[in-house]
């Protein structure tokens, strides 16, 4: 019975392809899910024609399982279609309707060819097969979207962990966003490598941009501090907001000997003091012009001792 169904499907596809294609495309263009801004009727027509050709070839083999080798061409075409639609920003239902909109025109023709009574039983396998093809499309669509997300995550991770030099021997690591294990790893590696490269003795980790600190985040921070200490650099954690201080205490996180400061400037002051440097006011009313140069040079020149 199932093979019969495929055989009659094959007949329809062979005899009536032109009209079926027309009806199918019309169906899609008139449906609310049609996106004239993303795809044209002509493009859709091409896709549909290719799909019908591939499906006819696959159905000729008599095989019903869409995961079997004869259906590879159909699957490949759906893969390409779904992934490209996922990247263009189609929704899952807009993508899956490509297959589901074929049902009505195809079943109309099957029914006409087979007669009312026989059609009911013979439609079932074809129906199942189209359902599976539709689900397959959705699955591939989802996978395509996931790939986009993964790529974006990687890009974000590379972007968001700069290590800046505040002064000779003082590094700062302004953290922005949630700290998960993967990011901590990148952050830690970046920081430690920069410590080696620059020979910095002090690193300031600024967590002003970290929205929440839970036990896991705190653990990651402590790991980073411990690793930097093993390399011979001291770490100061700065930018702790009042709410975060409360959370840390409520969670019972033990920060141990880690130096913590409320602001980056406090941490910088401590770092300069450790290096035997200091910032000094050079004149009562600094002129605007050379304010910058003179002000920052003061730290190096007047601080010794």
């Amino acid at each position: 019975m199932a093979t019969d169904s495929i055989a009659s499907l094959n007949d329809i596809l062979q005899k009536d392809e032109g009209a079926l294609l027309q009806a199918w495309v019309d169906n899609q263009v008139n449906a609310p899910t049609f996106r004239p801004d993303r795809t044209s009727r002509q493009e859709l027509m091409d896709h549909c024609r290719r799909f019908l050709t591939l499906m006819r070839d696959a159905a000729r083999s008599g095989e019903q399982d869409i995961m079997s080798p004869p259906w590879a061409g159909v699957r490949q075409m759906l893969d390409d279609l779904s992934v490209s639609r996922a990247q263009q920003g189609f929704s899952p239902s807009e993508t899956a309707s490509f297959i589901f909109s074929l049902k009505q025109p195809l079943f109309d023709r099957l029914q006409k060819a087979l007669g009312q009574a026989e059609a009911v039983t013979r439609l079932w396998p074809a129906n199942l097969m189209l359902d599976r093809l539709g689900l397959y499309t959705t699955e591939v669509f989802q996978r395509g979207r996931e790939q986009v997300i993964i790529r974006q995550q990687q890009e974000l991770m590379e972007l968001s962990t700069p290590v800046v030099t505040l002064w000779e021997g003082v590094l700062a690591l302004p953290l922005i966003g949630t700290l998960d294990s993967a990011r901590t790893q990148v952050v830690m590696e970046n920081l430690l490598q920069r410590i080696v490269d620059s020979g910095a003795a002090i690193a300031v980790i600024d967590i002003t941009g970290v929205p929440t600190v839970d036990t896991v985040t705190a653990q990651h921070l402590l790991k980073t501090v411990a690793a930097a200490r093993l390399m011979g650099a001291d770490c100061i954690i700065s930018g702790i907001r009042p709410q975060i201080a409360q959370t840390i205490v409520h969670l019972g996180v033990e920060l141990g000997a880690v130096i913590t400061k409320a602001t980056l400037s406090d941490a910088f002051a401590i770092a300069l003091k450790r290096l035997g440097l200091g910032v000094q006011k050079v004149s009562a009313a600094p002129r605007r012009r050379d304010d910058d140069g003179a002000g920052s040079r003061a730290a190096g020149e007047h601080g010794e001792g």
Partner: protein
Amino acid sequence: MERIPILKMGEYLLVTIQIDMHDRLAMSLQDDLTSRIVSARAKGVLIDISALEMVDSFIGRMFGDIAAMSRVLDAETVVVGMRPAVAITLVELGLSLPGVRTALNIERGMELLRGLISARGADAGSA
């Protein structure tokens, strides 16, 4: 059997680990170093591990042990030149070596040792 050389520089001992450590080598280093601290009356030990690329928990613990043993023998220990990968590994192994002093390179380590020993001398003098 291969051994790790221990160099004497004044009142300091200098240990440079330039080959991958295995357990037996670590044990013999412990033996050699402790007896050398006593015989040389060393006040400070500097261990340079900048060439060490791999550590396991045993080697990691050895550094802690050596530091503790030296302290018992009245010498300060500084471990210098740890590579980032080694530091990350040790932290991931849960060995943050709380009793070990560290420095970025030999120069800084020597400075730290001098500071520690002179501070200790001052303490002993005032007491």
